[in-house]
């Protein structure tokens, strides 16, 4: 099939992304070790979200692939998030 023309990602891109991921990991460890505030979990999750966005986009090639894969991935993440939110309509208001 001709629509799968592969974009060859240079090694350096992957290296750069790893570097970024390591920095983000370090940050989240640092942030949560220094002092526990009610925000530290939120920050850790935010950082984890950012990290996974990079993994999805670059390592998993979503950035270079057909749009349909991106649409599907986003919708499924939204679906899971909605299910969690709706579950909490019970637990948060008990």
């Amino acid at each position, binding site marked *: 099939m001709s629509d799968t023309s592969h974009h060859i990602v240079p090694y350096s891109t992957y290296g750069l992304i790893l570097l970024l991921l390591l920095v983000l990991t370090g940050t989240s460890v640092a942030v949560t070790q220094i002092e526990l505030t009610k925000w530290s979990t939120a920050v850790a999750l935010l950082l984890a979200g950012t990290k996974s966005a990079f993994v999805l986009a670059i390592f998993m090639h979503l950035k270079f692939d057909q749009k349909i894969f991106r649409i599907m991935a986003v919708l*499924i993440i939204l*679906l899971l998030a*909605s299910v969690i939110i709706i579950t909490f*309509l*019970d637990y948060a*208001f*008990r």
Partner: protein
Amino acid sequence: MTSNDSENKGYKSYLEEDGGRKGIFKWILSTDHKRIALLYLYSMMVWFTVGVVLGLLMKLELIAPGQTIMGPQSYNATFTVHGVIMIFLIVIPGLPAVFGNFMLPIQIGAKDVAFPRLNLLSWYIYVLGSILVILSLFGNGPPDTGWTFYAPYSFKTGTNMLPAALGAFVLGFSSILTGLNFIVTIHRMRAPGMTWFKMPLFTWTLYGTGWIQLLATPIIGITLLMVAGDRILGIGFFDPAKGGDPLLYQHLFWIYSHPAVYIMILPAMGVISEIIPTFSKKTIFGYKAIVLSTLAIAFVGYFVWGHHMFTSGMSGTALYTFSILTFLVAIPSAIKVFNWISTMHQGSISTDIPFLWAASFIFVFLIGGLTGLVVGALATDVHLHDTAFVVAHFHFIVFGGVGFAFFGAIHYWFPKIFGRMYDKSWAKTGWIIFFVGFVTLYGPMFYLGMIGMPRRYFDYLDEFHGPNIVSTLGALVMIAGLLIILTNLIKAARHGEKTTEMNPWGGTNLEWQIPTPPPLENFDEIPVIEKATYKYD
């Protein structure tokens, strides 16, 4: 329509093409989507028979108050195994695995599904799952938790609940792989010109169903694994004594199992959307509305699971949100009913047997759907939850909906699949007896539920006796009808009058434009689609 006969075309049908294999290996090693469809059909018929017998035993027990033919433990085991078989082995895989497998590639102009070997593997996984379900019958006695496996009882009961739950887990895997296969097939293998909005509606519903199979099934998979963890290791996820929350089990279970009812009903709606235009000789009314409502049902269906938990002690906010969302999901279902009826309006209707099944589908589906709203409304459900009313509701919609659509589908596609024709007058006799029996069997349960008869008990108070007699008699009538239908079909599949007519009903989809029965790869040449579907000139 030039030639309506596939005789003398010098081709070999898929039934003659055996891939050089002998006997049963022609079937269990073939990756042809049509043979796999029939493998599913035959295995399901075995299970359906078992399920029906168990159902009849329950009805016989309930013909009179007190112990009639079995005690409480046997009764609990019977409704559990009945439920597990009917839900996980019959209605969830039913329409997609049998008719989806057979018709989906043909309807979009493809030679097979995207992953034929995976397709065969799904069937083997299905068989493995059903073996696990059988295993649960031995040892410490059949499970007695109900098909819902509610915690904490499910990890406390001494009966053989584990194999049954594991069976459900494995069957879920089979279901996921089928859905995955269908989605990829629809995305990648449509014939040139077969745009999304030219796809037949049955295919569309399989697409929606595929996504639900893919995204909801893993939730019950992991939930059952957690219950297994509680049972084997004593982890305590759902054990209140260890801090676990049994209500969370119910949440997780229904996060899957409500969407699962749409796995069941969506393809049924697809079948009806095929049959109605064919026998009304009219373009389907509101094609796009049906497509969009299919997707809407699939989507909104994820967010209404809580309506099964109205009396379990959820927060007030959750209660009314789930009730409102439940009402929302009824709208797209209603849209479809209007579409079917508008299609029939001023059409030239022929009351052949598939049409009769479709028309009676609409009738029972309406009753099932409207009573769904009765239990979907918070206030009324508090009164009706866990009564016979709920049993009547879901039998009208699951057995009435999916079952009637299944029978409609098999009578509709039978000549295409087997290249033989059944006896039409016996088919009609069976249908009317079945229909009358069905309504007599489940109708009284609405009333029984309203006057307070709980579900899942082997015994009841004297005041419920009358309607229960009627109901059991209805069961006998219905089973008589079922026997006629099945005998007629089985006889026809083996010795029925041969037919090579390509398009016996005057349908417009691709399956009616290829030889009967279809050749191994369906099409000599991949067709190019120009016309919109459901066009009658």
